[in-house]
């Protein structure tokens, strides 16, 4: 079969709030698919439906040939889940955690021992496996959190923002682990609001916002969506208001979108060469001091900006 996952019109409403508003996508066998979206976009809700934790209000998904609605148990046997928040028993050691969770996935005996050894190797914790998880750093806990999802060698692994709130080194290790797993043939559904992660990892990306899939495809396909536009990044000094500058710039002719993050304003323009002078001129006229300007090829961030008028992280 070509697709390990096919989601059709998945919907989830919480009372009045429609958290996921009919999301459809597929994940090909063996690929890394990223669900990229800002906070509250519906990433976790989507993964929760796909993993059988919550029932969809509407729609369905077929994973490895089984419906999440009518055959949840079969689905759950075939997927690995790495939750967004670390979900481990702090007073158990890493090895005990892996043993317990392995048993929950039906492993036992020699196979369980072998899988635990392999996973500990994979997450680089073989030498500290017998220490209680509560003594671990945040990054180490994240690695165990991931390891739990790998024990039963799932065909499809769900990873919900696995790099949130950790140091750059652990983040690097996790991204490398994802790539290594994928190289072994595991398909991965990876959610993030870091476009760099989606860019580095993914074969294909779905951009989700306010519960809707607003763009879907390979990175090249997505970049084409913004039709040859370019991105200007304006860096201003710390004491100046970047969102005020974004408002100024957005009004200029030839400017598609502008959004502020920290002390940088990203501006999507039809042509960098033509827009550069008017943009910098307008900024100076309004009293902004530009410290530097970069011209960039369109990336996922600019796609999001182009489609929503907002930055991924606000």
């Amino acid at each position, binding site marked *: 079969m070509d697709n390990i996952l096919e989601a059709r019109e998945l919907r989830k409403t919480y009372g009045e709030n429609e958290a996921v508003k009919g999301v459809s996508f597929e994940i090909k066998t063996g690929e890394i698919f990223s669900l990229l979206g800002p906070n509250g976009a519906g990433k976790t809700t989507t993964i929760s439906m796909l993993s059988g934790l919550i029932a969809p209000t509407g729609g369905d998904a077929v994973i490895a040939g089984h419906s999440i609605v009518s055959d949840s148990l079969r689905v759950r046997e075939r997927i690995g889940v790495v939750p967004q928040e670390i979900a481990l028993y702090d007073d158990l050691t890493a090895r005990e955690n892996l043993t*317990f969770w392995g048993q929950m996935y039906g492993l036992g005996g020699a196979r369980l021992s072998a899988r635990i050894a392999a996973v500990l190797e994979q997450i680089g914790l073989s030498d500290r496996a017998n220490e209680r998880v509560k003594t671990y750093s945040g990054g180490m806990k994240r690695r165990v959190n991931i390891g739990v999802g790998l024990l039963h060698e799932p065909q499809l692994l769900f990873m919900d923002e696995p790099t949130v709130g950790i140091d750059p080194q652990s983040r690097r290790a996790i991204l490398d682990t994802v790539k290594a797993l994928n190289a072994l043939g595991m398909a991965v559904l990876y959610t993030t609001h870091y476009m760099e992660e989606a860019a580095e990892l993914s074969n294909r990306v779905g951009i989700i916002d306010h519960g809707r899939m607003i763009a879907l495809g390979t990175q090249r396909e997505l970049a084409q969506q913004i039709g040859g536009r370019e991105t200007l990044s304006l860096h201003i000094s710390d004491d100046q208001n970047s969102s005020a500058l974004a408002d100024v710039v957005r009004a200029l002719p030839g400017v598609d979108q502008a959004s502020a993050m920290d002390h940088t304003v990203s501006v999507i323009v039809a042509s960098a060469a033509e827009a550069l002078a008017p943009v910098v001129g307008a900024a100076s006229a309004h009293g902004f001091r530009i410290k530097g300007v970069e011209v960039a090829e369109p990336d996922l961030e600019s796609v999001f900006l182009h489609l929503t008028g907002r930055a991924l992280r606000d």
Partner: protein
Amino acid sequence: MSKSLLIAWKDLTLAFRDIGGLLLMLLAPFALTIGIGLVTGRFSGDANTGLSDIPVVIVNQDEGTIGETIVAIFTSSDLAALLDPTTLADAGAARAAIDADEAAAAVIVPAGFSEAVFTAAEAAPQIEVVLNPERPVSAGVVQAIVEDVLSRVEVGRVGGQVAIEQLLQTGRITPDQAGAIGQAFGEQQASTAGGTITVRRVDVSGRAAEAFDVLTVIAPGFALMFLMFTVTNAGRTIVQERLAGTLPRLLVAPIGAGQVLGGKLVGIFLIGVAQVAILIVANGLLFSVNWGDPLAVALLVLASAAGAAGWGALLAALAQSPAQIGGLGSALMLIFGILGGSFGNVLTLPAWLMPAAWITPNYWGIQGFAALGTGAGLAEIAPHLGALLAMAVALFGVAIVTFRRRGLV
């Protein structure tokens, strides 16, 4: 092993790694037991031996059956572990032995006692039980044994007299014969009494309370009180796991939601069993508490833990947050402790409050342990076991329905 049991076992492991929890589960009830034991004098006088080898002096000046029966009972192999009897000929020497603190009690059966009893003599001599005030518990046991023998003799005597009077009135026997028949009748009663006698009081009120080891009430009392802490704390882990993400993680593993809930609920029960079993065994070993029939004791431990675990499950099902369970759990621990008699106080409750005691595992557990500690068998604590199991079934049932209705598991 089933996944439910693995979940329960995991919870048991975690409970025994939680130092703070262990202090309340094991140390606190133990410390309170020792404290109350000291206050009641359990550890002075009789302290080192507990209730075994109670030194007792018997002086039998009676030539009849009752005196013989009493000697036979006090020297019987059934009571060999409990009593350390010495027979003396002289009442004065017996009293001196008590004064010298060489014995816990002296039993003096006066001359002509049997005959006076069986012939219903007017001024019957009295059996004298001299109690050593330094050893109230042991002395109480001796007194209880004597009273038990006498009460059986009395029943037989009254029954016999009615029959003899009827025979007399209907002219079937002569007054001369009446005395001899009465004596034969009474002797028979006295000797059957010897065969069935047991030393026990299931009632903890009044003087009889001294006749059994106070620790058979106090130790289970505190064990069961802190059992309420344990089960609510274990129930709290359901809410905690939901927040910590491990419960959702279990629910996306290939396990039925019912199995997950089942595992958590069995976990509450297992932790409760472990706590009570440890406390019962530890009290038994350290303070020589004789808990009674081991099978019945084991069943009572299981039933108490089940009843209490039901409460823990219900709280977990109703609560909105771990903090709320913590608060409610502490309140329940104290309220049930007072209502259920964990402070050795159940009979001081006003009558209208007694039904409230019945909803506590404490009440049934404590009553059951006290009964077993004074020699009751499995059959006699069947009502206690039944009440605790009914409590468990009802509470677990309500808890499961509530969990399901709230969509929590």
